[in-house]
């Protein structure tokens, strides 16, 4: 019977594939560390462990912590932009919402910071889900416009509801307390943010390597083709949107406690653009690219601060140059170069 043939043939094929994969896994068990995933994680961990040796004072730690906080958001956003191929111009809104939830709940209602953080993340997750259902039916410019609108609305609410949020002048946030000690100062925050970043990167890598990740890449390539192949595209898009929004909210909560002060600027449009730029500059569809993008764009203004008037010109030039000569972003381009170089030496 015709319809019996396909399943058996299919299972045979699948078995064969599992077999070859198991073989290759055994061969490379020792090289696990050297795979894209393991190697990347290992070098990120190495950077995080070695970096404090070079951080001389609180200002250096401040920059490092800001890089980490931005990187958490950008790793999440990269899932959405780089893998699912959807654009969000409103992620600073989620970041700001996370920050303000922590700020308001701890400052006005005396809630513990560690409790306020998951509440903020959950709230943003629910909001993102509610928005994503209708919004992610849109695509291209329409989706960008819709997320832009969401970000703007959040920003306006934060600026206007001064009785709750302190309005445009911002509000103080109590220090975060963990196990009875107040988290204060660069080094403590460095390790907290570093651990969160590692977790975010690990989650992101696992997601990409899972069936969900494959479905997402299919989605990015061609939504119609993915649908034909039986991928529930809307479900995956919504899922990734929610995950990335929650990651932004967690980063926002950490940022609020770290800077002890929040202003609506955390949620404004230019901040959203900055996040997207970090994804694109570092390299779309590259989790480590996202981390590098966040690092470069957080560090550059600090280097260029001494050039005062020319700061924006130089920043713009660097970004144009990178985009023209490395359209895939920093990390994928450099990785390809290194691979080519290695092949040449091998020959």
């Amino acid at each position, binding site marked *: 019977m015709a319809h019996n043939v396909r399943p058996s043939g299919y299972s045979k094929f699948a078995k064969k594939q599992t077999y070859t994969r198991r073989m290759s896994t055994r061969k490379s068990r020792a*090289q696990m*560390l*050297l*795979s*894209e995933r393991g*190697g*990347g994680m*290992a*070098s*990120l961990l*190495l*950077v995080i462990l*070695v*970096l404090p040796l*070079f*951080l*001389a*004072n*609180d*200002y*250096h730690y*401040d*920059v*490092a912590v*800001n890089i980490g906080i931005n990187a958490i958001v950008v790793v999440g956003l990269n899932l959405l932009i780089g893998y699912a191929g959807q654009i969000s111009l409103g992620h600073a809104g989620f970041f700001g919402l996370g920050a303000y939830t922590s700020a308001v709940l701890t400052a006005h209602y005396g809630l513990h910071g560690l409790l306020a953080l998951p509440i903020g993340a959950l709230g943003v997750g629910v909001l993102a889900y509610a928005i994503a259902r209708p919004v992610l039916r849109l695509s291209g410019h329409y989706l960008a416009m819709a997320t832009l609108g969401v970000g703007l609305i959040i920003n306006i609410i934060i*600026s*206007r509801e*001064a009785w709750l949020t302190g*309005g*445009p*002048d*911002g509000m*103080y946030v109590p220090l975060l307390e963990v196990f009875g000690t107040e988290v204060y100062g660069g080094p403590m925050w460095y390790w907290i943010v570093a651990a969160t970043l590692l977790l975010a990167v690990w989650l992101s890598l696992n997601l990409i390597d899972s069936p969900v990740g494959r479905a997402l890449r299919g989605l990015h390539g061609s939504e119609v083709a993915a649908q034909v192949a039986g991928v529930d595209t809307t479900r995956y898009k919504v899922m990734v949107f929610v995950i990335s929004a929650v990651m932004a909210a967690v980063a926002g909560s950490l*940022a609020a406690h770290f*800077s*002890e*002060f*929040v*202003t609506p*600027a*955390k949620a404004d449009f230019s901040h959203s653009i900055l996040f997207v730029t970090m994804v694109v500059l570092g390299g779309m569809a590259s989790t*480590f690219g996202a981390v*590098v993008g966040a*690092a470069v764009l957080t*560090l550059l*203004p*600090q*280097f260029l*601060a001494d050039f*005062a008037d020319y*700061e*924006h010109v130089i920043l713009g030039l660097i970004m144009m140059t990178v985009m023209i000569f490395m359209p895939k972003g920093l*990390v994928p381009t*450099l*990785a390809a170069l*290194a*691979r080519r170089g*290695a092949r040449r030496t091998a020959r």
Partner: protein
Amino acid sequence: MTTPLKTGLMLAGLAIAALGLTVSAPGAARAEDDPIRVGSFLAVTGPASFLGDPELKTLEMYIERINQAGGLNGRMLDLVHYDTAGDANKARTFVKRLLEDDEVDVILGGSTTGTTMAVIPLVERAEVPFISFAGGVSIIDPVKPWVFKTPHTDRMACEKIFEDMRGRGIVRVALISGTGGFGKSMRGECMTVAPRFDIEVVADETYGPGDTDMVAQLTKIKNAEGVEAVVNAGFGQGPAIVTKNFAQLGFEVPLYQSHGVASKKYIELAGDAAEGVRLPAAALLVAEKLPAGDPQRPIVVGYKTSYEAVYGDGSVSTFGGHALDGLMLYKTAVEAAGSAEPAAVRDALESIRGFMGTAGEVTMSADDHLGLGLSAFRMLEIRDGDWTLVD
């Protein structure tokens, strides 16, 4: 070694190298004749640049003057400035940089209340004197040991208006305010201080920042029982529209504007409708009109002439004046303390008496880190398209 790890390590190396570059050698012990390092963070670009730009220009101009005249106690002043673009997060990072990397002796700046408030915990912990150029009353109320500020507050503007009203026998007022940061803050302050002047607020209307017509709100005010004067708290275009609508509706009671409209632009926008409008403003606005015997006259005329000589006629603003006051307060304190040592300067700042600046006469104390009296504001009336002093 396979390639992914190699590239990973290469990137790691790059990242470390990049960060390594920021690390500077730890500062050697400072000699007594080294320059005094003045740190500053201002919103020179971005939406608040109308504040930061004249502030920075003023600081640069007057620091050069002080240096040409031989410096402070024989030490030159060295200005380290970073642009915050009005972003509180950037302000925090830059102030850490000023404190930790540049090891400044004093911090002048913070163009906006937000950027100022964000860095207060840092300067308090680092114990470095900090003089802010921002408006908010929350900066100095409650008093923080190391934080001072130069500009008058919204509360003082309300008090000045109500004082003038009492002089004219006005008791029942209507309030119309913008919902932007400035209007909102001033509305709150006016509500708080009104009872102290026995002023009764009988109507309270608001308008959005982008509104182009306030006839509806003003009609409601007109219909309210026994309104004797209208106060408009706002900034930018809004107050000019309120003024025009006010004239169109044929109100017979006086209209008071806030110090937020104290610029020639307002008179241009409101045109004839602005005739007879009163507002509290800094003396700088009417520098040349101050009577010859006024103790503030030489200060404001001097600043106006020097600034406009460089940047053109009509370029002077009260914001730059706040920066000048901050710098001069610091100069006075260092000279009084005989050193730039932070704790000594802080104590000297707190005991400044009768300092005359562009904002008015400053007398600091342990529980007043602003030190301005109501005399800092001048009540102006617009007559024939120009400012005239009322008192």
